[in-house]
């Protein structure tokens, strides 16, 4: 048994066979051959050896001509390793005696040998593992190539192990087939982590090198609560996790039961629970978790990991993809909220910014690059013809800025009208309140928009002038800070007076203790990541709006963040004792 520690990014426990996705994505699908077919399987391995060695010699020839003999010799050596008699003997024995497939037998043999090298305590020798993996890859490509068709479908649910996964790869994972995943690279705030969380797939990232210690089909455990990957678990550990899994299943059943129940307080106040999504694939989660719509559809994913900016059609398709899954629900699309570095069409490099969070980003960037902004506005408007699409501007700091953005929107509307392209003339237009100046001017802003959405993550950092990723000042970044809570209260009051809806779409909505406070100051809409919704619904159904109001009034009179946190924790302990246990 081996225990690897990484970063827990998506909760839950999964036990299952490993599916090792290496960098070149050669995957080992099946572990066992049909009984009695080993002579054919060994013959298959021998054929793969001949082609792989031939391939390596071809590379040797090319490299020798281009770079010189001594470089070509490396590949000549690889060819010799591929044809190694000991390797063949060991692989053949495993195929014959254990009934393994050639791929699985090869992978086991190579990994065992690589591990021996790695254990030699000599850096240069340990690096030689990469030669072994090169050989493995060459042979696997031959073997897998021979039976590509059979591998297209996984025969059973597996745990995906990889060096790294891109966010879009993660978003496309089939939750019925992938029980959990664990990667060598990655961190807590990566998009991969956000997506895993949204999909509800237990995940651990940043584990460091471990792929060399595991073969496809090995039994592994991913503990997404503690950030642990266990290879080859012993009986006791396995039993412990089986029990944990059962407890989790019970908890999940309870949450599923909540799905179809309305989010209404005990004294009859309806709270609308909306979901924050990042990728179109997450829309299914909105329904599964019983949310009332999409409170925040981030659109930055369209720009990530690509060379050219997305076209209007790509924007449009991404919006329709969500709409098709949620035809009768509101979908709030937030316009681009990223820095200049993400755009390829922003050719004029801006001067190096000393403080990017106070610089040209988000709406500011869009207003500096109107042609780019128009592409997105056109796509959102076009999508509005097909459902309840709403548009929201992020990082608005002043009234003038909001007016400029709206003016551009009207201009694009006119353009579409002239082209006779259908769109919703009365599309609701909202603004995020996440800059203190906007919060202070909320009463004025409220007259010119249809709704507010309070982005607490940025609001907290701007109000307290503290970057939460800077560990020396992170202690200041606190959602419980009375200045933050008072400001949010002011924004809610302004929205109430102007009779426009207001929503909170930051992480505060996802935390039961703050959700209680937010309901208490009069919020009737909360938007959180889909997986958090059942928990918040449970909270809502356990409280009365009147108690929450009294608690919130008490909080608004308190002096320090510490006082507020401990007071809210106390309240929550009384209402939902199990919520704090997690």
């Amino acid at each position, binding site marked *: 048994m081996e225990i690897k520690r990484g970063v827990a990014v998506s909760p839950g426990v999964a036990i299952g066979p490993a599916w090792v996705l290496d960098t070149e994505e050669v995957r080992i699908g099946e572990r066992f051959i049909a009984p009695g077919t080993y002579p054919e399987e060994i013959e298959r391995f021998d054929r793969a050896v001949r082609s792989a060695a031939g391939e390596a010699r071809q590379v040797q020839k090319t490299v020798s001509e281009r770079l010189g003999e001594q470089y070509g010799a490396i590949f000549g050596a690889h060819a010799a390793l591929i044809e*190694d008699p000991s390797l063949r003997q060991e692989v053949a024995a495993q195929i014959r005696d254990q009934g393994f497939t050639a791929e699985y037998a090869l992978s086991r043999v190579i990994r065992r040998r690589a591990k021996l090298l790695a254990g030699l305590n000599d850096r240069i*020798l340990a690096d030689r593992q990469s030669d072994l993996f090169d050989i493995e890859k060459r042979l696997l490509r031959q073997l897998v190539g021979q039976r590509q068709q059979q591998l297209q479908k996984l025969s059973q649910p597996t745990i995906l192990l990889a060096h790294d996964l891109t966010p879009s790869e993660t978003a496309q994972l089939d939750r019925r087939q992938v029980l959990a995943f664990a990667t060598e690279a990655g961190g807590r705030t990566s998009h991969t982590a956000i997506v895993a969380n949204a999909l509800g797939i237990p995940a651990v990232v940043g584990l460091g090198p471990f792929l060399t210690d595991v073969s496809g089909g090995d039994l592994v455990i991913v503990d997404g609560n503690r950030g642990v990957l266990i290879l080859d678990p012993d009986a006791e550990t396995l039993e412990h996790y089986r029990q944990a899994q059962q407890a989790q299943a019970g908890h999940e059943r309870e949450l599923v039961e909540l799905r179809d129940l309305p989010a209404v307080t005990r004294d009859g106040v309806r709270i609308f629970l909306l979901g924050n999504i990042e990728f179109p694939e997450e829309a299914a989660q909105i329904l599964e978790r019983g949310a009332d719509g999409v409170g925040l559809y981030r659109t930055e994913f369209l720009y990530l990991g690509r060379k050219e900016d997305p076209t209007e059609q790509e924007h449009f398709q991404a919006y329709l993809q969500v709409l098709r899954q949620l035809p009768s629900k509101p979908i709030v699309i937030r316009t681009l909220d990223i820095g200049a570095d993400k755009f390829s069409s922003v050719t004029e490099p801006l001067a190096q910014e000393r403080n990017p969070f106070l610089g040209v980003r988000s709406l500011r960037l869009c207003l500096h690059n109107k042609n780019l902004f128009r592409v997105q506005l056109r796509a959102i408007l076009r999508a509005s013809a097909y459902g309840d699409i709403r548009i929201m501007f992020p990082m608005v700091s002043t009234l003038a800025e909001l007016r400029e953005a709206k003016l551009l929107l009207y201009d694009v509307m006119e353009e579409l009208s002239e082209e006779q392209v259908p769109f919703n003339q009365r599309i609701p237009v909202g603004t995020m309140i996440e800059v203190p100046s906007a919060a202070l001017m909320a009463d004025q802003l409220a007259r010119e928009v249809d709704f507010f959405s309070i982005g607490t993550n940025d609001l907290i950092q701007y109000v307290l002038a503290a970057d939460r990723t800077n560990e020396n000042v992170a202690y200041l970044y606190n959602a419980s800070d009375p200045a933050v809570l008072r400001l949010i209260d002011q924004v809610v009051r302004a929205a109430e007076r102007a009779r426009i809806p207001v929503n909170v779409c930051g992480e505060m909505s996802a935390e039961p203790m703050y959700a209680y406070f937010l309901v208490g100051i009069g919020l009737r809409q909360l938007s959180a990541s889909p997986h958090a919704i059942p928990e918040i619904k449970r909270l809502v159904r356990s409280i009365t709006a009147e108690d929450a109001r009294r608690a919130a009034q008490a909080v608004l009179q308190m002096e320090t963040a510490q006082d507020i946190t401990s007071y809210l924790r106390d309240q929550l302990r009384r209402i939902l004792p199990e919520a704090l246990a997690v």
Partner: protein
Amino acid sequence: MPQQRVVRSVTIADRQGLHVRQAVECARAAARFQCQIILVHGERRAENCRSPFDILQLGAGYGAEVTIEAIGSDAQEAVEEIATILSREFPN
């Protein structure tokens, strides 16, 4: 031809330690002889000197001592040839 048992120790002279190309050359050389050849480094043994994998697995770094042991009619020539390869410095 009479059977011989020849044993000789050499020191790995290449800064990279016993590396892939060297292992492959050893294995190729070994394949040309009739005799059985074993390499020993500390507690690790390569029982089949015709397998570059097994030779690599010795994990012999720079300056390590490797013992070559051969049994067979051509053991003397085999040991000499392998000793030459192992104690040689390879150009990068």
